[in-house]
């Protein structure tokens, strides 16, 4: 296809490097240096999508990040699909595949016309607001239709083949934006020796200078730009980041930069290269030189393809050698807009008219237009555009000096392109990100960055300083200030001489009047991406929304992926006019990170797949894997859940493991239990303060179970602590609670009792813990140790330092199963050795490995709690029937004591943990089931407590459960009923939670 809108010469494209690309299945040509948007315009592609709500055809409006319409889907393959790409920011590469996202089944045909109109009437202003207030079922109906009809891009269905990086950076000065202000700031900072990061979202530095014909020092501006960039490139202290959008400005001068490393080269990054990189920068000082976006004017049918902002027209002509049409009508409220007409004329195309809303425009560019003989219509406006898929003409009429009404007769002009300029809006987005509220400035006719606590400077158009000479000067000053603030001395920078252009005063006008009232005039769009019109905003104001923040939520203005970069100020102006207020009186506009959409890949970086979250393995992990263990996540630990034999179901495996342990001997890898080494002369006293029971008399060589409570008296962890020496203890915690308990101990030591001499250290990973349990555990251990294991020498709750399988070991005779049990702790690297030795010798005892599920069943048979399963932060030791573990006579008021004594904690009818036996022994209650005393009570039934633990016990050949029942400890033998979701009601009897061996004879052998 021919590039019918490509000019014969000019632009920063390389005509010797032709490229082909695909849009909606058709092949087109462009050149290296094009953006996708400029190539589309060169090929005369008018329609790039259909609008969200009304399904109106939409074309390219702008040339940069502010583009609301040309938001395309990219990707040659399923795996490389990328949604949300602004064609104006995507550099063209050979073989690029793109498609429109808004428009089904085709953007060209108007199949959606009827439905689109229906959608329009179905979605009046306040649609979202109102819909969300109604049942969700309604939204489901609307949403599927809207999404299908409008389309918002889609995620790939296959894994992204590219890799992404994250990198942490530090610098003295981060300069954001590579236009004249940014260039002079970066140059000044760089020459002083400061560590500078200089980022710009475009492929080359230069900003506005790239798209204009202006001169610096009498030569094309690009010569100065090249010289500066060349010099900066030579400095070791400078990092240049083109194609890098500073997307977020966060607290304490932390900024994120989204660098697109290979998006301009190919669909998929070359081997060994990251596609994108997220720089996380801590900057001492930041210079924002982010420029300004031109505001389009709001007039009837201003969304017909061919309507553009004036500056974009100049950019396409000057930078890309593309004139996006043949006959231009320019409407402007200010002098700068004239440049589009001048460039259009100089490109050899026809300027039909310059329509200036001002009565008496004066200024250099106005003069230049007159000299070129252009048709200047003053005191007038384009009140309406004709055309549907492309502009075919305009209606021009004189308007009043205040811009509020049409004052004369309408004349029609033929045109295919309408450029409009309502002035400029400084790009203040980043300065808003940390909460600084922008301030309206009447002279600039826009919001300027507000006061901030960040170490932030601004230069150039972001300050409303639109001339190149002022931008250069402000950049220099910002550079000097930043350099001085970081303690460096500045060196001389000579600024180039810019052309001085005299400009007349602009007119403050946003919304062009029509012959009809706004509500009856053809649609006047404010926010293209969300299809918000001037009439819609007026409706919102009429319905009583007075703050712009409410108007925005009501209309969805600014809620698109472009965050209303083009439309927000116009929308505020329309609201202000409707409310008879000034713009600042309606509120302000706040922007949030990110400035432009960031891919999930860049945010994730390498933190995906196996690197998403660390996994912790015990020293015996490989053995478990080899034995076919099923694993369970406990915190970051991978713990064996159960060890099925080939063909075995989970239930069969659990029954086998449970029976084998109580009949002979089972083994559990308990290495993940938290272990905290506690030393110091006050260690014992400290334990007494953080545990509810007594520790004063625990002798060396003895172990004791302890309960840990918060100051509210509620249990939060438990475990066995052993006395290793007079001033030396080993505390064990739950697997998941280890880090929290350590921080808890440190908190109290450091903030409440710093006078105590005690030290804590985590030793969880230092030890492997191998727990053998069952009547044959002693015989098995005896084969691997010389230690006297007799009950007289090594009793229950003793520990011994000894040797097991030839390696030093601490053996603890403690039990979580109720069986005779030994926890063998060896240095972690010996874990696998001892584990294998145990199996070598254990074969004759049918040594059976078991995991967390069997551990849970065996402990439940004994009524032992699991903190975090049978407790939830609202139960104290007495609720658990564990008053035996609460000391009453300790001299120090330990943590939890006062809390447990609160009025609410001593109520008789608190929920208390009891055992529950279902009347039908085969029925296993679901955990979480809520109990009631009267299953016939009217709904809502009074609930008396829930099931916390429930299992099938193979040893008891029946189900067992533990749960809370109000006043349950005094209700032994009474019935509780559990109505289930399927309509059945399970009856159970309250009993002791100790289902097996209530006297503890099995462990005391």
């Amino acid at each position, binding site marked *: 296809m021919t590039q019918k809108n490509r000019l014969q010469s000019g632009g920063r494209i390389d005509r010797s490097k032709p490229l082909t690309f695909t849009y909606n299945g058709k092949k087109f040509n462009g050149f290296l240096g094009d953006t996708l948007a400029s190539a589309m315009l060169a090929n005369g592609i008018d329609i790039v999508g259909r609008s969200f709500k009304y399904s109106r055809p939409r074309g390219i409006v702008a040339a940069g990040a502010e583009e609301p319409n040309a938001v395309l889907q990219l990707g040659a393959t399923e795996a490389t699909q990328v949604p949300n790409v602004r064609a104006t920011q995507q550099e063209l590469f050979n073989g690029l595949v793109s498609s429109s996202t808004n428009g089904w089944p085709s953007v060209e045909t108007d199949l959606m016309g009827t439905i689109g109109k229906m959608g329009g009437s179905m979605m009046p202003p306040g649609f979202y607001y109102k819909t969300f207030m109604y049942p969700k079922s309604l939204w489901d109906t609307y949403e599927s239709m809207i999404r299908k009809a409008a389309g918002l891009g889609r995620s790939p269905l296959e894994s992204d083949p590219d890799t992404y990086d994250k990198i942490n950076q530090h610098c003295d000065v981060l300069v954001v934006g590579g236009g004249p202000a940014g260039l002079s700031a970066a140059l000044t900072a760089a020459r002083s020796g400061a560590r500078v990061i200089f980022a710009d979202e475009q492929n080359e530095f230069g900003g506005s200078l790239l798209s204009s014909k202006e001169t610096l020092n009498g030569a094309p501006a690009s010569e100065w730009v090249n010289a500066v960039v060349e010099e900066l490139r030579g400095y070791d202290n400078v990092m240049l980041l083109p194609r890098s959008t500073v997307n977020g400005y*966060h*607290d*304490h*001068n*932390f900024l994120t930069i989204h660098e697109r490393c290979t998006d301009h080269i190919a669909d998929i990054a070359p081997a060994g290269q990251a596609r994108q990189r997220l720089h996380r920068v*801590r900057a001492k000082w930041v210079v924002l030189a982010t420029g300004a976006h031109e505001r389009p004017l709001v007039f009837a049918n201003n969304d017909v393809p061919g309507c553009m902002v004036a500056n974009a027209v100049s950019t396409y002509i000057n930078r890309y050698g593309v004139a996006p049409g043949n006959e231009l009508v320019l409407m402007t409220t200010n002098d700068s807009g004239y440049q589009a007409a001048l460039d259009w004329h100089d490109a050899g195309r026809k300027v039909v008219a310059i329509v200036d809303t001002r009565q008496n425009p004066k200024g250099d560019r106005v003069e230049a237009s007159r000299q070129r003989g252009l048709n200047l219509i003053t005191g007038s406006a384009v009140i309406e555009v004709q055309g549907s898929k492309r502009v075919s003409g305009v209606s021009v009429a004189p308007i009043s000096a205040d811009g509020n009404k049409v004052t004369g007769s309408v004349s029609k002009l033929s045109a295919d392109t309408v450029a409009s300029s309502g002035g400029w809006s400084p790009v203040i987005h980043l300065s808003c990100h*940390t*909460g600084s509220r922008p301030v309206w400035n009447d002279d600039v006719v826009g919001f300027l960055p507000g006061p901030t*606590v960040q170490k932030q400077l601004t230069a150039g158009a972001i300050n409303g300083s639109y001339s190149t000479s002022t931008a250069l000067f402000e950049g220099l000053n910002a550079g000097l200030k930043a350099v001085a603030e970081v303690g460096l001395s500045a060196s001389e920078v000579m600024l180039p001489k810019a052309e001085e252009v005299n400009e007349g005063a602009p007119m403050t006008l946003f919304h062009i009047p029509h012959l009809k009232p706004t509500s009856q005039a053809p649609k006047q769009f404010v926010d293209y991406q969300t299809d918000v019109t001037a009439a819609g905003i007026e409706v919102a104001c009429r319905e009583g929304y007075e703050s712009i923040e409410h108007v925005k939520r009501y209309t969805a203005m600014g809620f698109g992926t472009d965050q209303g970069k083009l439309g927000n100020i116009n929308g505020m102006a329309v609201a202000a006019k409707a409310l008879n207020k000034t713009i600042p009186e309606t509120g302000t506009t706040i922007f949030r990170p990110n400035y432009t959409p960031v891919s999930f890949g860049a945010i994730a970086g390498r933190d995906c797949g196996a690197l998403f979250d660390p996994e912790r393995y015990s020293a015996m992990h490989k053995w478990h894997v080899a034995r076919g263990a099923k694993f369970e996540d406990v915190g970051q630990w991978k713990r064996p859940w159960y060890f099925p034999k080939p063909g075995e179901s989970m239930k069969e495996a659990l029954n086998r493991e449970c029976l084998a342990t109580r009949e002979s001997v089972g083994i559990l890898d308990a290495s993940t239990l938290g272990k905290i080494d506690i030393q110091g002369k006050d260690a014992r006293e400290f334990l007494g303060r953080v545990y509810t029971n007594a520790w004063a008399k625990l002798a060396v060589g003895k172990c004791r179970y302890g309960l840990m409570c918060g*100051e*509210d008296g509620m249990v939060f962890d438990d475990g066995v602590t052993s006395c290793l020496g007079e001033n030396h203890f080993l505390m064990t915690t739950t697997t998941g609670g280890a880090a929290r308990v350590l*921080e808890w101990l*440190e*908190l109290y030591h*450091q*903030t*409440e009792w*710093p006078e105590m001499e005690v030290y804590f250290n985590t030793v969880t990973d230092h030890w492997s813990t191998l727990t053998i349990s069952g009547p044959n555990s002693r015989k098995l251990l005896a084969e691997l140790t010389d230690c006297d294991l007799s009950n007289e020498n090594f009793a229950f709750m003793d520990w011994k330092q000894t040797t097991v399988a030839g390696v030093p070991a601490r053996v603890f005779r403690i039990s979580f199963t109720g069986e005779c049990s030994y926890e063998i702790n060896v240095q972690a690297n010996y874990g696998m050795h001892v584990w294998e030795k145990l199996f070598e010798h254990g074969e004759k005892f049918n040594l059976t490995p078991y995991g967390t599920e069997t551990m849970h069943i065996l402990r439940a048979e004994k009524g032992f709690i699991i903190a975090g399963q049978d407790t939830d932060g609202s139960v104290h030791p007495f609720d658990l029937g564990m008053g035996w573990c609460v000391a009453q006579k300790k001299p120090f*008021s330990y943590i939890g*004591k*006062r*809390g447990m*004594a*609160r*009025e609410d904690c001593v109520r008789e009818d608190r929920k208390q943990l009891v055992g529950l036996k279902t009347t039908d022994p085969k029925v296993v209650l679901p955990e979480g089931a809520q109990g009631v005393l009267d299953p016939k009570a009217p709904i809502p039934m009074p609930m008396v407590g829930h099931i916390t633990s429930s299992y099938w016990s193979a040893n008891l050949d029946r189900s067992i459960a533990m749960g809370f029942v109000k006043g349950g400890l005094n209700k032994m033998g009474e019935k509780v009923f559990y109505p289930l979701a399927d309509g059945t009601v399970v009856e159970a009897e309250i009993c002791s939670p100790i289902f097996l061996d209530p006297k503890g004879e099995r462990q005391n052998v």
Partner: protein
Amino acid sequence: MFHIYCPHCAEYREEEEFHASGQAHIARPLDPEACSDKEWGEYLYFRKNPRGIHHELWVHAAGCRKFFNITRDTQTYEIKEVYKIGEQPSVVAQSGNSK
């Protein structure tokens, strides 16, 4: 993301290394048994939520494991000072500013 100076490590580190632990200067009553339920409840549950100057307890959890205090402006997120446990803040809210 905050940039926090740990007074024990004596250097700035990223917020990721720290945990916030709530309002600072909540001293455990020396004689809990002498507290009424109301007093104990106030010690346990009642905390300030000021707009402006706030004193917070932080811990360098993934660093030196030491607790320390931060005076922070909850509106601007500026950290006005850091100081060790047992020390008093030098930046305090003007009266009427800490509702």
